[in-house]
């Protein structure tokens, strides 16, 4: 057999790349079982304690931060997805003045460095005299998530054949019925993707949050602050749990889709 460098290098490269990607995740997961004291840097033995008593450390500060992040993420996602979907439909379907300019402006929050965005918002809240709390964080997150929602949903709206909605109207569907039974279900995959993206962006945002949160602590902020004096293993527990939850969701979606395709193929 002829010796081939490519045949050897490609698997090697793949394995190295995967290891590189996986090391931090595996580390986080493994050290969530570390029987640590204050800092969680050296391995001191295996325990389930951190998983079982996750909300007990520092009077439940980890869980409170996590709860804040989930709440902010959910509210900001719902707001940004609703507004963003409406904007996306308007931008694709209707002609109005400054339409293309609006489209362009919506890209700006994505292109602007987060530090600038966060500092700018903080300055606005300060000059308006708005106290920084949960509400300002939600406003800030909704603001930057809208852009991502618009971009994601717009692609879906553009690929939707207008004849489908016309057929709905032709078949005695009022405007509300056509939206509820045709437009919305057909846009749903795009809207869901946008919502997941929004939640993910909001959940792990640190920079903008840090400028606009005041005394409120979110999960990323908690980790950043505690990194100085040693991150407790409970943070690893929450991070691992989130990772596992995401993994389960993705795998379930894939499996159910494969099953559906198989069922359809059987029919056909």
């Amino acid at each position, binding site marked *: 057999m002829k010796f081939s460098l490519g045949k050897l290098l490609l698997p090697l490269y793949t394995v190295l790349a995967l290891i590189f990607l996986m090391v931090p995740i595996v580390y986080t997961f493994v050290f969530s079982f570390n029987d640590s004291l204050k800092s969680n840097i050296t391995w001191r033995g295996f325990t389930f304690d951190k998983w079982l008593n996750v909300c007990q450390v520092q009077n439940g500060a980890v869980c409170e931060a996590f709860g804040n992040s989930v709440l902010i993420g959910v509210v900001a996602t719902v707001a940004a997805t609703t507004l963003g979907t409406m904007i996306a439909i308007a931008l694709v379907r209707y002609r109005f003045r400054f339409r293309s300019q609006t489209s362009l402006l919506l890209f700006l929050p994505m292109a602007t460095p987060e530090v600038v965005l966060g500092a700018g918002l903080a300055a606005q809240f300060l000059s308006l005299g708005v106290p920084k709390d949960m509400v300002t964080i939600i406003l800030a997150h909704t603001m930057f998530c809208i852009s991502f929602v618009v971009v994601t949903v717009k692609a879906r709206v553009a690929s939707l054949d207008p004849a489908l909605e016309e057929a709905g*109207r032709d*078949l005695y569907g*009022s405007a509300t019925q056509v939206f509820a039974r045709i437009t919305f279900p*057909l846009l749903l995959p795009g809207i869901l993707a946008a919502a997941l993206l929004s939640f993910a962006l909001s959940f792990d945002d640190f920079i903008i949050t840090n400028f606009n949160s005041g005394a409120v602590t979110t999960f990323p902020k908690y980790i950043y602050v505690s990194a100085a004096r040693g991150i407790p293993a409970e943070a690893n527990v929450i991070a691992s749990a989130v990772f596992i939850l995401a993994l389960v969701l993705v795998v379930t979606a894939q499996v159910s889709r494969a099953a559906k395709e198989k069922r359809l193929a059987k029919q056909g």
Partner: protein
Amino acid sequence: MNSGEFASAGADLELVGIQKRFPGFTAIEHLDLKIPAGSFFALLGPSGCGKTTTLRLVAGLEEPTNGRILIGGTDVTNQKSFQRPVNTVFQSYALFPHMTVLENVAFGLRRRRIDDPVAKAHEALRLVELDHLAARRPQQLSGGQQQRVALARAIVNRPALLLLDEPLGALDLKLRRQMQLELKTIQEEVGLTFLHVTHDQEEAMTMADTVAVMNKGRIEQMGAPEELYELPRTAFVANFLGQSNLFTGPVVGSTSEAISVDVAGQKVVVPAARAHRHIGEVTIGVRPEKLTLHVTEPVGDVARNLMGPGRVIDVSFSGVSTQYLVEIAGIGTLIVFAQNMAFGPVAHEGSEVWLSWNIEHGFGLEDDASAEPRFEADDTTRSIATQKRSSLLTELEGA
């Protein structure tokens, strides 16, 4: 129409002084049209002639700039699409991809709260012989099957008026024939009024009782298919509906029976009743299959027009018939369709030939041949809807 009720029979459609302008162009100049209840009416024309716009106006998907639309005597101009007793079979079929075939068909019934929508949907699917596929999604069906679902989804509502927007355009020849037959049968069975928009002249002629030929936002001529074919009124109709040999020349003699026209020195006689203009420069014509090809100069016959000699410049054999292109000096190229009564073509490229036809078969046009290109390319035919869509897409890409 009240919800919960079916239309009892087809209804008249009347368009009064319809005009439709889009930003930048006028799709329909001025349209008056009356389609009697129960008829199969075809609107025939090339792309951009305004036929799809007409259909969309009737469906309520566009609003007319001027004019009124009446269905069964009721003015529906200001009614929304979902309030009109009209259903459409879309060019792209527009089946809802997220619903089963059955739910697609039941959609209109459910919106109107008709009793027992599922049973009625099954019944409609049986009519198009697709009931066994009721549980499938539209994507799992072939083009012909999708077309039949689209048809079932429209007729299940028993509309007073059924609109068909080039529904057979995407099918291959054999399926098309089958569907044409099926449409005709269904129309006879359920007795609806059909308005069929197409750019396919053969489809229009075989299916419709009445054909209206549309060009540049106006109806050029309207009538039974045979009438349009045998006695076209304009050069556009003469060339869009089949092929024609057209000649232009001054009228040199005229009786109450016939006019004679000087075509580059050759005298051609046309019955006065079949000619629209009797003085001055006129354009006259004859269909290619009415011409007889002679390989020797025929003896004069007062009942026939004679032209020649000319030279055969092209012969194409197609089984049942042969098409010859004959070049006659000073007149131009003529098309001749000859049935293959003997084996193979009777003349060959370069042969000297004469052409003759029965005087009764000629026709005289109202306008001049030069006003229109001889053949309209309609390979780019698309509905206004798809044009809109593609313009939206390009705008998006540009943004």
